[in-house]
């Protein structure tokens, strides 16, 4: 059983195309689309974190219903939340649409590049968007909440490293989710995955404080947001309670590897029948 279309010999091979050239062309495409949709991107990814900071970091302390130094806990947590949400959404939502009904990813799947690199490019693009969300929310948070007790920018490289690895891990998670869910289930993504992840992701409280509820303290360790939030706490507000930065970095790298493996498997399944 065989089929032969055209010629049996490879002829007119033309000049070879570097894989990196195609990879960067796809990245340029994603950046072009992201730039065009920037206002919507910012609204989508930063509205919720900004509102949280307005209420919990500005309003409640001002009304005397919350201690002023709560902002020390809140800022890294909300920053982690913005990076994670932005990275997940930047890849999961387009994947659901493009594999589900618009099929527009097919042009890239038919490009002369290994299919797994198309997935890798999508993760890189979403990682960049996660970092961008962090770059917007950090100064905005400082503006909204005023001076943050204990905030340091001395460990800027640590901040960038945690942000980058964290954003990549959440992008890979987004790849997995985007390939796994059907368009009609998109609401479930937020109610059953993103919602619990936000509330049990040590965004509003440091992990160490959960010692009072030991079951929860260990249960939340399955939540990837915990490591990003605690990692940013360790880098931005090192004087406040936080997880060991080495543990956090290790956990984020492992999560990145696990999510990438799962995401790639899902992507390949959707991309090649």
């Amino acid at each position, binding site marked *: *059983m*065989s*089929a*032969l*279309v*055209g*010629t*049996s*010999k*490879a*002829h*007119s*091979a*033309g*000049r070879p*195309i*570097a894989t990196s*050239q*195609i990879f960067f*062309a*796809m990245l*340029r*495409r994603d950046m*072009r*689309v992201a730039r*065009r*949709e920037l206002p919507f991107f910012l609204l989508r990814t930063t509205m919720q974190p900004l509102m949280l900071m307005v209420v919990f970091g500005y309003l409640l302390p001002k009304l005397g219903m919350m201690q002023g130094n709560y902002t020390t806990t809140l800022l890294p947590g909300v920053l982690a939340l913005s990076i994670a949400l932005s990275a997940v959404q930047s890849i999961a939502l387009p994947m659901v649409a493009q*594999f*589900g009904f*618009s*099929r*527009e990813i*097919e*042009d*890239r*799947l*038919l*490009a*002369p*590049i*290994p299919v797994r690199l198309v997935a890798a490019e999508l993760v890189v693009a979403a990682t960049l968007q996660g970092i961008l969300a962090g770059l917007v929310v950090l100064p905005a948070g400082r503006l909204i909440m005023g001076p943050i007790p204990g905030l340091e920018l001395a460990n800027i490289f640590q901040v960038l490293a945690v942000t980058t690895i964290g954003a990549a891990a959440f992008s890979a998670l987004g790849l997995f989710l985007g390939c796994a869910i059907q368009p009609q289930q998109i609401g479930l993504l937020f109610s059953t995955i993103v919602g619990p992840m936000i509330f049990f992701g040590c965004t509003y409280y440091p992990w160490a404080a959960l010692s009072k509820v030991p079951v929860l303290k260990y249960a939340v360790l399955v939540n990837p947001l915990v490591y990003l939030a605690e990692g940013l706490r360790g880098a931005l507000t090192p004087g406040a309670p936080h997880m060991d930065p080495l543990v956090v970095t290790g956990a984020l790298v492992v999560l990145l590897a696990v999510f990438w493996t799962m995401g790639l498997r899902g992507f390949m*399944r*959707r*991309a*090649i*029948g």
Partner: protein
Amino acid sequence: MSPPRGTDIAALVALDRNIKEGEFFGLLGPNGAGKTTTIGILTTRVRATSGDAWVAGCHVSDNDVELRRRIGVVPQRPNPDRGLNVLENLVFHGAYFGLSTSEATRRAMDLLGKFDIADRVASSVDALSGGQQQRLMIARALLHEPQVLFLDEPTVGLDPQARLALWTILRQLHADGRTIVMTTHYMHEADELCDRLAIIDRGQLLACDTPEKLRAQAPGTTVVEIEVEGDVAAAAARCGAVPGVSSATVSGNSVRALSDRGGEAVPALIRAIEGAGARVTNMNLSSPSLETLFVSLTGRRLD
């Protein structure tokens, strides 16, 4: 969504033959025949569970990256990049194939002009009509100058005018010497455009030849459709007994008779119908066609 599994082996069985360079090859069959799966395998988008296929000198699974470089694919439903405008769709596609922006833009403008959508370069793809979107898909598939062009049911959902415009484009591409593989479930389209046709159904190859030779294989030679007023069943029964008529069936309020003697059987058929107490109100003769061949091979109509 991935195509249904399990059909891929059969689809490849159906294409157990070679398509020559410069040939316009058609895969004709009803929905679910395995046409799209076959195209999927040949364009590296579906993995074959067994068998081998080479396209433009490349094996579909061992050399898929190089193969993709040598083919252009026009999908069944237009799938332009909705984040980009018309020109960007082509220029970025060119970039995925290693073309510089200036070269891709030059080729894009040339193709858009040829396909009569040059005035829409800056439009959002959503603003294009169905026919324009399909032409954009063909322009995209041609931009990197592929050796083989695959089209999967390219005229489905197009109005007659857009379909004819597309036929003109495809004829021109064929005249330019390009190898084209097209699936369709429109008999007439396959007949009009293709050098050679494979008729497939449920993953099995039923026939493969030039449209002329396939038509010559069609049984019953001529289909005589006679609209009848009165007892159609009785009229059909009498028609079946007319010499030279191989079968006569009821189709709505008409009798469909397969005549081996062409139009010669017509007077006898009219007498038979009148003999059954019915009256002939209309009549239509069609010469042997791929449609009659398909019906004889599968026992059912194509669409």
